């Protein structure tokens, strides 16, 4: 059972997304409070399990922009420029040379089946009579068609998203650290006081201060009452509020610590920062008994039987036997920087890294995380599917030779054969660009040493 860090989260006040056309499996997609701003009539805001409220098209499919992630070694980033779509209907055939030391102009793998950017990232077209609204504007594509843009960035959907609340287009979590240009879902602003921010973490949507440092709550506080005085204040810093702030606003309220000194509370729990906290988005304060991180939406429960294992880098997700679970990450060195990490995309990159193009070795070294025959996900982001290990493609359930596997964001998960003890992460950062371009990363639940000195 997933532990709700803030007790009251279990009965979230926020409404379940939309209300129509949502299958039972989307029940975890809570719609967090967000700031309503003008948007095109064909756009809606839907809740997601791990990415907060996102903009979606009329089908409920998440909207994305192209541009995010980081440039590689100063070789210039990709992505759409302002007010222009570089996502064309023609198929990119050669590399752009962003993967030094490899030059530009080399033929890409599996060209015969390679799709155009616009095929896998359908533009969100605007009607001829559509008018710009708020942050939304209209750009003209090279073929003359009109496309919506958000903050001057062309907007797309992803063919990987099938249901409302899917955010499969953006890769693992929000692809932070990915080398290459990624697509990122676009979201309305969360309805939070300006001092706070929310960050999507494997454990949920973590509430932090705007500078990224965690906020915490304490068991010994009462509802809208702080009991942290004296010695407690040597370690904890109440998050203060303005004198003119209204008393209550949604989940938020202010309480007077002493006459004229106001503190924020969230869902009736006074909020604190930890003095000398170790790094941004830290779990450190919650190691102290009675103290907890705060989530606007806790992450969906990990599949039944999964475990969490400790190692020198923090805590990783593992299968029932304690073997670390890995995700595979891949972005092609083409102008459209398509993903190559999904069963519907080319498998060549993965096979190069996982088995030196030897599919058998690959399946032996990096086996799929097999799900029980009757395994069922309780959430949308975790799933079970059948995959043909010889092709890496999804197949219909029961197809001979197929494997029933766990998926995250519609991508299979793996373990590594050479990991022997629980917590081993021998394949972490395997692959190109330390695995951030094309390779494997452990599924970190707690990254304790992310910060440099």
């Amino acid at each position, binding site marked *: 059972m997933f532990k709700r860090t803030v007790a009251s989260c279990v009965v979230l006040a926020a409404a379940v997304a939309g209300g129509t056309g949502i299958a039972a499996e989307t029940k975890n997609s809570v719609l967090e409070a967000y700031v309503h701003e003008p948007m095109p009539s064909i756009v809606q805001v839907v809740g997601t399990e791990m990415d907060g409220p996102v903009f979606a098209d009329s089908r409920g499919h998440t909207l994305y922009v192209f541009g995010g992630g980081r440039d590689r*070694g100063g070789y210039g980033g990709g992505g759409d420029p302002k007010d222009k779509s570089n996502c064309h209907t023609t198929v990119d055939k050669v*590399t752009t040379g962003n*993967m*030094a*030391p490899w030059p530009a102009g*080399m*033929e*890409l*793998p599996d060209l015969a089946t390679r799709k155009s950017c616009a095929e896998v990232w359908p533009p969100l077209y605007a009607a001829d009579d559509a008018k710009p609204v708020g942050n939304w504007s209209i750009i003209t594509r090279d073929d003359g068609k009109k496309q919506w843009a958000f903050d001057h960035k062309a907007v797309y959907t992803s063919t990987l998203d099938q249901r409302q609340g899917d955010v499969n287009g953006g890769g693992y979590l929000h692809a932070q*650290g990915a080398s290459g240009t990624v697509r990122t879902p676009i979201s309305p602003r969360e309805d939070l006081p300006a001092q706070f921010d929310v960050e999507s973490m494997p*454990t949920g949507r973590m509430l932090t201060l705007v500078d990224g440092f965690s906020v915490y709550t304490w068991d010994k506080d009462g509802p809208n009452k702080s009991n942290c005085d004296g*010695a407690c204040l040597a370690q904890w810093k109440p998050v203060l509020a303005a004198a003119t702030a209204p008393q209550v606003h949604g989940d938020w309220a202010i309480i007077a610590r002493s006459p004229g000194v106001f503190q924020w509370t969230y869902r009736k729990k006074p909020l604190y920062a930890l003095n000398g906290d170790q790094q941004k988005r830290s*779990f450190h304060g*919650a*190691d*102290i008994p009675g103290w907890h*991180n705060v989530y606007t939406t806790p*992450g969906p*429960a990990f599949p*039944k*039987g*999964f*475990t*969490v*294992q*400790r*190692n*020198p*880098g923090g*805590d990783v997700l*593992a299968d029932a036997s*304690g073997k670390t679970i890995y995700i595979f990450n891949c972005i092609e*060195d083409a102008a459209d920087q398509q993903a190559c990490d999904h069963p519907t995309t080319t498998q*060549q*990159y993965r096979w*190069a*890294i996982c088995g*030196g*193009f*030897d599919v058998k*070795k690959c399946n032996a070294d990096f086996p799929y995380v097999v799900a029980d025959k009757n395994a069922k996900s309780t959430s949308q982001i975790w799933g079970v599917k059948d995959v043909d290990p010889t092709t890496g493609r999804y197949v219909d359930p029961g197809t001979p030779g197929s494997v029933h596997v766990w998926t995250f964001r519609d991508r299979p998960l793996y373990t590594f054969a050479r990991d022997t*003890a629980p*917590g081993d*992460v*021998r394949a*972490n*950062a*395997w*692959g*190109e660009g*330390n695995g*951030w*371009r094309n390779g494997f990363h452990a599924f*970190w*639940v707690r*990254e*304790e*040493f*992310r910060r*440099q000195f």
Partner: protein
Amino acid sequence: MKNTHVAGLISGVVALFGAAGMTQAADAPAAAPAAAPAGAADTVRNRAIGYVMVSENRAIYETKDGKTECPQGYNDGPREQFKLRNPDEAKRTVMNTRLSFESEVWHPATTPDPLPYHYIQGNIGEGLNLDGKVGPNDLSSPLGEKGIDNNLYRAIGCTRNFRADGETSILTPQWRSRARYNTFVIELTDVDSLANDDDVTVTTYRGLDKLIADATGNSYLPGGTQTADMTFGRKFIQSFKGKIKDGVLTTEAKDLWMPTASVYDPRDGGPDTLYRAMRFQLNVAAKSADGYMGGYADIESWYYASHNTRDALHQSYGGTSGPSMYRALMKLADYAPDKNGVNTAISSALNVRFTQVFVRHPDAQVAKAPIDTSATIQTTGQRE
């Protein structure tokens, strides 16, 4: 004497940290009016002294132009091999260049290298005599010490990255001192004298605190404090019996894991580096220590750690080709044969420098996992 650690103790100091503060020996003897000899070892407290590593590099002996030890020049890296592997420009594809190379990086072979590779020539090198013998293939130090075992040097000494002005050599010391993941601390206990003591214990830890830079920003100050990581870093804790003679500490040999993450992205740590039969030979002083750590690098962990932290682009900076280097490492491996009799480790030495720190052993506090699954949290990486 047994090395003991009491939760809450600062090495060399009597009192406990507590909510109310701490009380310890002052920074000077009480009222010390007399002119004591300068540089007194007041950093040894309660018979203990700690050091944090500020610089680490592989022990590579090199002559000025490299012509003596690398008469055929330096090794090719991915960039140069690219042309050799795919001479026909028209036929180059992602599959047969980049992915083909990467597949060999991650799945290296010991089959003969089709491309040229240069090993160190001659018999001069740095390091330690690991096996206590003087064999025909052993190296001699520039000062004439015989029996030095350092086949790693032979394997990688003609690769620019590992030479003094190579990128890897420039960056490795920085990774050791700047990546939070990599902070490496040793603590000497049961110390009666830093000059001569026939029974001391050396314990390694990962440290959790930022090193304190001096005003020039280029070196680190003695006198800082390092908290030993007893929660996530147990894998790195090892203790060695040792002795100090004329200011030189030597220890017994034991297996040792050293934390190995890239400074660019500490998340890329993980495999770490295992040294078999590692031992210390350090000049120890009140404010600093330096010298060698010598042992047999476990090839799998050493090789993968080097690629997990530096990708083909970085390797290209200094002519490191993973597939070629792996063959060289395996060819010169000289320790720890597997069940097929194939050696899995290679003699090596590290050039290391430390600055003095106080080592703090925090109250045992178990970090909670941020989520509570049905599974228990296990700590791993305890050495055998």
